């Protein structure tokens, strides 16, 4: 019996190794959201600029919902893509400022440019939990009925945009390509 105790660490370790092994198969870049094909969760929050905002204020066309934060270095990498999308008016982008502080968020937008229609301020991370956010950056594709259609975890750069989002959007728009 006492000898068995000494084998416990081995058992615990291999159980853990199996989990880690499984973890490698989880595609962290395309985590399935619980909310795919479900409507956006209800929310009543303020924007980063202090205005009240609810589901009604979301664009009534297909849009991107980007989870970002001023602490998030990868967000800087994907930022130029969103700036371009906003400039060229390809698709509206709504931001969710996730687990950040208002002052820092405002500064960050000031510093790097603001591609968002507005950014929902989610200081507590509560809205992020409702959405099933894993961490910033993450981007959701939401259709004109407010239903979440696609989720991309991590940086959305030009190649991700081309290879994942353009086809997904084309499909939503009924085969009409951008």
């Amino acid at each position, binding site marked *: 019996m006492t000898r068995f105790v000494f084998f416990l660490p081995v058992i615990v370790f291999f159980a853990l190794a199996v989990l880690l092994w499984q973890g490698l198969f989880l595609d962290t870049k395309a985590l399935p959201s*619980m909310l795919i094909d479900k409507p956006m969760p209800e929310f009543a929050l303020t924007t980063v600029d202090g205005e009240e905002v609810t589901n009604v204020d979301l664009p009534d066309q297909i849009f991107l919902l980007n989870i970002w934060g001023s602490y998030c270095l990868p967000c800087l990498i994907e930022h130029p893509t969103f700036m371009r999308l906003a400039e060229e008016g390809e698709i509206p982008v709504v931001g969710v400022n996730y687990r950040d502080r208002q002052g820092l968020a405002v*500064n960050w937008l000031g510093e790097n440019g603001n591609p968002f229609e507005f950014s929902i301020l989610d200081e507590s991370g509560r809205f992020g939990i409702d959405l099933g956010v894993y961490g910033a950056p993450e981007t959701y594709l939401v259709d004109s009925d407010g239903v979440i259609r696609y989720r991309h975890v991590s940086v959305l750069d030009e190649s991700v945009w081309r290879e994942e989002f353009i086809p997904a959007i084309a499909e939503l728009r009924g085969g009409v390509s951008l």
Partner: protein
Amino acid sequence: MVPELGSFSLILALLLCVILGTLPIIGASTNNVLWMSLARPLSAGVFVFVGLALAILAYAFVTDDFSVQFVAQHSNSLLPMRYKFTAVWGGHEGSFLLWTFMLTGWMVAVSIYSNSMPLDFSSRVLGILGMLCFSYLLFMLATSNPFDRVVPLPPADGADLNSALQDFGFIVHPPTLYMGYVGFSVVFAFAVAALLSGRLDSAWARWCRPWANISWAILTIGIALGSWWAYYELGWGGWWAWDPVENPPLITWLFGTALIHSLAVTEKRGVFKSWTIMLAILAFSGSLLGTFITRSGLLTSVHAFASDPSRGFFILGILAVAIGGSLILFAIRAPMLKSDFSFDLVSREIFLLVNNVILVVSAASVFLGTLFPMVYQAVTDDLISIGPPYFNLIFVPLMILLVIFVGIGPISRWKKTSVSFLIKQLTKVALASIAIGVALPLVILMEFSLPATIAMALAAWIVLGMVKDIANKTANKPDLITGLRSLSYSYYGMQAAHFGIALMVTGVALTSYFSTEKSVLLDAGQSIDVGSYVFTLEGSSQVRGPNYVGDEVAMSVTKADVPIATLLPQRRIYIATGTPSTEMAIDAGFLRDLFVTLGEQKESGAWSMTIYVKPFIRWIWLGAIFMAFGGSLAAADKRYRKLKKRAEDKALINAAEALQPVS
């Protein structure tokens, strides 16, 4: 041609590791002196060839050889020379080479300082390190060769080093952290060698302790550098974010802290043997796990390297063999290790055991919090996010408990301590600590706050307990100086490290509860009050660096009309990538930091900025410096050197004994 020489010397090092990982270990069990004596020259050879590879990679960076993919991805012809040099560890491949080089450095250190050990033992230690090094080199050559070329045509210029990495912190943080991290491989090798040979006694603990202490000290500095760097570079004024990649070093550090205490008990009292071995394995596992998380893309984080699942499988394989193998060996061999349990329920042994339990529980809870989102998803296919609130909730109470024991432990006695003795010793200390805890925050900050009171009382508890203990220990000496001289380095090391905890506790609590920050929009000439300071925007100007352009504003700071400092925060655009970056300006002080991060200039000409006043933040890193100093001092204790001669004589006898497992 030169980069191919780099690959070639990695292959040579790999081949040397094949021999190093086999012959000396076999030699140690068959008593083949020739095979055992191969260990030292082979370690030196591996060190030379891995070092050569590192030098060649640095050469490729310095000469802008963009035909090498890793260089093309992480450098640029405009990059200043010091960053070209350090861009060597600016990405996965190069940093793994640095990591491996650190391991070979430790191997050489072990082979130089292993004279006090019997030959069979040092051969086993070096052999095990050789196996580890083999797996790292194989991993590098198979999945992440830093010398891979860009085919068919090299780019005209490189993509540049991430602008956040172009900083002094990046020059010093990764090498220090890796050195400390990898140092625990040495302790791990000692543990596995002990299991293999069945030799685990006070002498073993004495060989092992300086290595554990030094690794721990370096890891402490490495983590502190990372925290300091994040504080001034990332611009959000935080010093710890519970990021999934910050956590593994902390886990390793917590296990390492438990280990150095447990080793002390094993050396002095010959008990807790299997527990010490277990901690050595755990500390090493923490460091491997850190590698796994950063390099497999398992968790997304600020630190994550470009991820590639095949790397993840490979590292998981290394993990399974190294950790799984050593744990199986532990399960088979540890029951044979007999400890002579001769201590009471109230004794220093028990207090140290309590310290160990708290540290291990803390490490385990950080570990769970780090991996939980992934495990949760694997099991339920549902998602969850865990952030600082979880960690603070678990970690802070555990640390408070730990600090209480830091006060009691040193004053208690080995074997048996009477409760009435402890009460007699500590009542006054406790009362004085509470008085200080209530009074000091009122005097310094002029407001009452429970967290500050608790923190100051805990800090006072450590410091006063320390003074009391030193007074006890010098009481019987003719005078104080003689008394202080009679105490050992390792005793002073312990006290210095504990004093570091007191400083850190103070810094953490006061910074967390009394920092102020303000986001403002200021025109030239306008002022703003933050805390008791007045910040005035004097003006702005254009700046130009070697690889960036930007704006700089001048902020003057006064307190009660006395000028304190002029701060010059900048906003930069890096030319090669067009990435913006902020350089905050900090006026660092012993009692407070003032710092300003610059936002953008509005059309009106006003600047947006965030201003912070952070009291006592430097104490956090000052505490870490004291801890590391304490660890080094303990490792420098005379008894590790004095025993060399005696051990050499003993070694001859031991070599014969070691053939059969001594249990």
